[in-house]
C-alpha cells in the first residue's frame, strides 16, 4: 500500500495507462514541461517524450476536435482542460461531434476529457463551475467524478480504456485535501458502480465529488449527537449511474438526501430525485430532500462563496430535518 493524495491518484492513473499503451497520448495547455496548472502531469514530458505529451494553443475546440480525429485513428487521447469552465468554449465539439459520432457512424471515439472543477478556494464564477448536469444531458458521453484518491486512479484507468468519450471531472478542492492508502497496482475501477462509503439504516445521502467528504462529516455528527445511522453513497459515475445501488439504499433507509456542489435546477440531483420518485416512491417515509448550491453563479468573496456552497453544517441541518420529518 502507498499513501496517495487525490491529485497523485490522477497522476498515477494517467501514468499507468501511458506505460501500458503507447496509443495513450496527452495534450492540453501548459501540460508539457510546466506540468499543467495543477502539476498533475509534472515529469510526463521527460518520461514519455514530446510525441506523446505536448502543449497546445488556447484552443479548446481545436484540442477536442483534434482529439476526435486522433481517437478515430486508433489513439486514446487524454485532453486536459485547464478548468472545466473552459470546456464550454468547445461544447459543440463535445456534444455534437464526440458524443454523437458513434450513434451516427458506428465509429467509436475513445477520448478522455479531464476537467478540473468545483469551488471552495476563491476561484470565482469562471474557475469553480460544476457542469456535470450539463454533460449528463448529452447522449453518447459518459461522466465520472471521483471523490477519493484510489477511485481517482482507478476510474481514470477505466475512462481511458473505455471506447466512448468520457468526461472525467476532478474536484480541485480535493487535489491536496484528501489522502488515503491505496494498493500499488493501478487496477481499474469499473464505470457505473457506486460506492457505499458509510453504512446506516436511518437515511441515505446520495452524493459525489467534494460533497462526499462533507456528507460523511455530517453523518458522523448526527451519529455522535443524535444516534442516527446515515448511509453515504458516492455515485462515482454519473452517467451511466448505478440505479441498483441507489434503489437498494432507498429500500434500506426510506429517507433520502441528495447533495451536490453545483446548482439546483436540472442538476444531477434532480435526476436522482426523479428516479426515486418513479421507482421507489412507495418506500419513502419522508419527501426526498436536496442540498445543493442555489441557482446562482459561483461568487468570489469568501462570505458569498460560503453561503453558496453546501458544506457539512448545511448538510447536517438538512439531514436532521429529514430524520425528524
Amino acid at each position, binding site marked *: 500500500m502507498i499513501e496517495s493524495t487525490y491529485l497523485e491518484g490522477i497522476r498515477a492513473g494517467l501514468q499507468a495507462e501511458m506505460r501500458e499503451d503507447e496509443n495513450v497520448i496527452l495534450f492540453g495547455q501548459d501540460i508539457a514541461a510546466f506540468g499543467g496548472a495543477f502539476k498533475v502531469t509534472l515529469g510526463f514530458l521527460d518520461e514519455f517524450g514530446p510525441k506523446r505529451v505536448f502543449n497546445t494553443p488556447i484552443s479548446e*475546440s481545436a484540442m477536442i476536435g*483534434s482529439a476526435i480525429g486522433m481517437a478515430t485513428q486508433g*489513439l486514446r487521447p487524454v485532453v486536459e482542460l485547464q478548468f472545466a469552465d473552459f470546456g464550454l468554449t468547445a461544447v459543440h465539439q463535445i456534444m455534437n461531434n464526440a458524443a454523437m459520432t458513434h450513434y451516427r457512424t458506428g465509429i467509436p471515439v475513445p477520448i478522455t476529457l479531464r476537467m478540473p472543477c468545483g469551488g471552495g478556494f476563491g476561484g470565482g464564477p469562471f474557475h469553480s463551475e460544476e457542469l456535470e448536469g450539463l454533460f449528463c444531458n448529452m447522449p453518447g458521453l459518459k461522466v465520472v467524478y471521483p471523490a477519493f484518491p484510489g477511485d481517482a486512479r482507478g476510474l481514470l484507468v477505466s475512462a481511458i480504456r473505455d471506447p466512448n468519450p468520457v468526461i472525467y471531472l476532478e474536484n480541485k478542492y480535493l487535489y491536496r485535501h484528501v489522502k488515503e492508502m491505496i494498493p500499488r497496482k493501478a487496477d481499474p475501477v469499473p464505470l457505473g458502480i457506486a460506492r457505499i462509503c458509510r453504512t446506516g439504516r436511518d437515511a441515505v445521502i446520495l452524493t459525489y465529488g467534494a460533497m462526499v467528504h462533507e456528507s460523511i462529516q455530517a453523518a458522523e455528527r448526527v451519529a455522535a449527537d443524535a444516534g442516527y445511522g446515515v448511509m453515504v453513497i458516492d455515485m462515482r459515475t454519473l452517467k451511466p449511474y448505478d440505479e441498483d445501488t441507489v434503489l437498494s439504499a432507498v429500500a434500506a433507509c426510506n429517507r433520502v438526501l441528495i447533495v451536490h456542489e453545483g446548482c439546483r435546477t436540472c442538476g444531477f440531483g434532480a435526476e436522482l430525485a426523479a428516479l426515486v420518485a418513479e421507482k421507489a416512491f412507495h418506500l419513502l417515509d419522508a419527501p426526498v430532500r436536496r442540498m445543493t448550491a442555489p441557482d446562482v453563479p459561483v461568487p468570489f468573496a469568501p462570505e458569498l462563496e460560503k453561503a453558496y456552497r453546501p458544506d457539512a453544517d448545511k448538510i447536517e441541518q438538512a439531514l436532521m430535518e429529514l430524520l425528524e420529518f
Partner: protein
Amino acid sequence: MTLDKDKGLEMLRVMLMTRAIEERLIRLYHQGKIYGGVYTGYGQEATGAATAALAGPNDIFTPCIRNLSAHIGRGASAMDVFRQWLGRKDGPTGGRDSNVHFGSAENGVYAMISHLGAMIPVCVGAVMGRRYRGLDSVGFAFIGDGGTSTGDFHEAVNFAAVRDVPVVIMIENNHYAYSTPTREQYRCKHLVDRAAGYGIEGIRVDGNDAVAMAEALGPVVEDIRRNPRPVLVEADTMRMRGHGEHDDFSYVPKELLDAYAARDPIRLARKQAADHGWADDAAADALAGEIQSVVDDAYKAALAESRPDASTLTLGVYAGD
C-alpha cells in the same frame, strides 16, 4: 505538374457522377420523395474531384455540404448516396443522420456535422493520428467562405500551423453563405490573405477548373507530405443554386450566375479532356451515358430498400454496449 490520362478521366467521371446524382436528388425532392431539405454542390464539383485525384490511400477528407464530389472521388458509390439521402436502413448512417452527413472509415472520409468549421480540427487530429502510427497522411479539410468566420476555423488552422500538420485547408469561396454575400462576411481582399497571419502559405486557384487546380496543387500536396505543414487554398467558385432547394436564391445577381455558368466545371473538364486528348466529345458523352444509367439504377434500387426499424432507436449511442 502534368496530369496523366487516368487522372484526367477520373476527375471527369467524379464530376459527371456527382452532377447526375445531385440532379436526381433535386428531382426526388420536388417529387416529395426526400424527407427534409436538399443541399447540393451544383457548380462546385471541381474542388472535390481535383483534391481526390491528388490524394493517397492514407489521406483524410472532411468534406462539407457542397462536396459530394469529394465523397465520390474517395470511393463513395451512387448507392451509398441515395441510401443516405433516403434514410434507408442499409445506408452509411442507417437513417441516423441526414443528407451528406456520412463518411467512410475505409476511404478516410469523415461524416460532417452541421456546425461549420467543426470538422477542420478533426481533420487535423486524424492526420496527426495516422502520422503518429507511421502512416504517410495528408488532410483535405473543406470549408466555405462563410465557415471561415467561425472560431473553429481559426483555432484549427493555427493549431495545424503550430504542430506542423500537413493539411490542405480548402476554402471554397462560392460567394454566398446562405443569403449572406462575402462583403458582409469578411473584410480582407481575398480569404487566402489570411495565410500570412498564420505563418503559412496561401494559394488562390480557379475553383471551377479541376485540371488547372490539380496541376497547381499537385506539387504543393507532395511538398507538404514530405515537409509537413498546413497550406491555405482559396478556390474561387460559385454556388449555382440556392442554399437548399427550398431557396429561390433571388438575392444572387443574375449576371454573377451567368458569368460562372459560362465556366461550368463540367464544361471546363470536358474541354480539358478534349484538349489533352483524353476524351473527345463522343467519348465524354459515352462516359456520361454510362454514369447516368448507374445513377438511375441506384436511386431506383435505394427507393425500394427497407427503412430503419423504430425498435433500433436506442442502439449504438455507446460503443461496446
